[in-house]
């Protein structure tokens, strides 16, 4: 649909004016304030604040656990999306609805309940502790809650693509002599990769910024289980505002690169489907 003439319908000036004013006040000025504060440090001080060994360890950990959780979610998401689209089983609608729970459940609740489940005497921890697996208050715990918070993304990006997939292509592959497994690997899987990557990037981005669920399940050990948002909190509590802003700027930079990547992936997967 193309837009209408500005004379045909009223409200263009009011609507756009309000939109831009609100966007500027609530989003752009605060973002600028953060960048200005970080810039007030000067290049060498900025590096000294944002690139300390402790900060680098925090970035690495944040990056690593988010990546691991998002990678796990590719596998889980493909299995769940495939099952929900292709098979019929009792309780399917309930399972489909439950997939969205991580998007609606407050992250604090997720952190609280995961921490309590995976402590050594928790519902699940009691089975893991004898195996020598320490899930609560460890990096594994952080990955676990991030798998939870990022779970819906791959499922929800792959599902519609799988639904739109023509049965004819699979039939053609079969008629031409491909086995079911070959058909999956060579015909179906390639079309699922772009949406799965989009879901991965969304889950990854979500993991990088996550705070509420993580602080319940991490032991907050410097260099070991301290994620970048926690370090920002520490600097704030020390009243080191510029240092906090410097670390925040690094995080913002990573987020914006990811946002651009997500937009590109979405554009590509749309082109493939359409």
């Amino acid at each position, binding site marked *: 649909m193309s837009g209408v003439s500005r004379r045909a319908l009223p409200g263009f000036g009011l609507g756009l004016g309000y939109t831009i004013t609100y966007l500027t006040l609530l989003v752009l000025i605060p973002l600028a304030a953060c960048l200005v504060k970080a810039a007030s440090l000067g290049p060498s001080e900025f590096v000294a604040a944002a690139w300390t060994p402790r900060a680098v360890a925090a970035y690495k950990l944040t990056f690593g656990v988010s990546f691991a959780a998002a990678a796990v979610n590719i596998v889980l998401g493909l299995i769940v999306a495939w099952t929900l689209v*292709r098979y019929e089983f009792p309780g399917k609608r309930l399972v489909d609805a439950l997939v969205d729970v991580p998007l609606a459940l407050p992250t604090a609740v997720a952190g609280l309940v995961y921490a309590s489940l995976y402590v050594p005497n928790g519902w699940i921890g009691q089975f893991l502790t004898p195996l020598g697996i320490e899930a609560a208050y460890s990096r594994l715990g952080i990955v676990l809650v991030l798998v939870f918070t990022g779970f819906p993304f791959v499922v929800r990006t792959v599902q519609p693509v799988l639904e739109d997939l023509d049965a004819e292509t699979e039939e053609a592959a079969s008629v031409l002599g491909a086995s079911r497994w070959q058909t999956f690997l060579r015909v179906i899987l390639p079309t699922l990769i772009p949406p799965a990557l989009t879901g991965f990037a969304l889950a990854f981005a979500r993991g990088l910024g996550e705070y509420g669920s993580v602080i319940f399940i991490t032991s907050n050990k410097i260099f070991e289980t301290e994620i970048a948002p926690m370090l920002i909190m520490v600097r704030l509590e020390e009243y080191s505002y510029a240092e906090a802003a410097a670390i925040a700027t690094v995080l913002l930079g990573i987020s914006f690169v990811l946002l651009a990547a997500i937009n590109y992936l979405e554009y590509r997967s749309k082109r493939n489907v359409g």
Partner: protein
Amino acid sequence: MSAESALASGQPTPAAVFQAAPLRRATRDPWYVRWTLIGLTLGIVGLLIGVPLASVFAQATAKGLGVYWNNLIANSDTRHAIFLTMIVAPVAVALNVVFGVAAAWSIARFRFRGRGLLITLIDLPFSVSPVVAGLMFVLIFGMQTELGLWLRDHGYQVIFAPPALVLATAFVTFPFVARELIPVLEAVGPDEELAARSLGASGWQLFWWITVPNIKWGLLYGVILCNARAMGEFGAVYVVSGRIEGQTDTMPLRVQKLWEGSDNPAAFALASVLTMLALVTLLLKVLIEPKVRADTEPAGKNADGE
């Protein structure tokens, strides 16, 4: 479609039946694959989501319903947290509704320079870490800034007070309503509004009598998602609140404080309220989704050869 072809497609010829059988097998998986994947799916969703949900309610009511109720009602700080969330979230949602409608109207109905950039900027808050979002407001309104001091001297406390909670919450939920409304408004199209205009309707008449009824399901959908996130927001609110007991603790912050104080039954009692809120949100979402989809995929789409 002619009557003949309708008849033909309704009654398959023997040849078509013969062909359909092997092709059907070609798109189906063997039973062991099917049952393995269904089992895995139930296991994944059960372990990841089902068990934690059950555990919230089990731990909240572990010492009986009386204690559960007492945990929610008897503590004045917990009561205040519930009250504060019921104030902060609706105000933030209302701000974003006004913005969402204005943004959707200008973006869906008109073409202008920078439109693509504007759409990207609206999504921006989704990619900002909540802690960074909170930090930004501390950097503007904190007591280390001239603005913060000036506001305090004139009797306005922003940071460590409800106004900052509203700002931080509005920031993290900023895109929700606009994102839902833009596609709905685009799909509905401007025809009815143009007709109303040509019949002499004023701008606000047109808005209240034509536009709002057309987008009501999309608007409601956006409000529900926005509200769920607003009530559950933790990171951004954590930073700007100062976590003053009985003053700036919202429900999720209170949950964390109770957990820190090792008062698990009370933490889980409050968490169970938030969980019920999430479940109600999902139920409403499932109910409203078909109506939103009907609005964004008007009947005319199929006739156009889609």
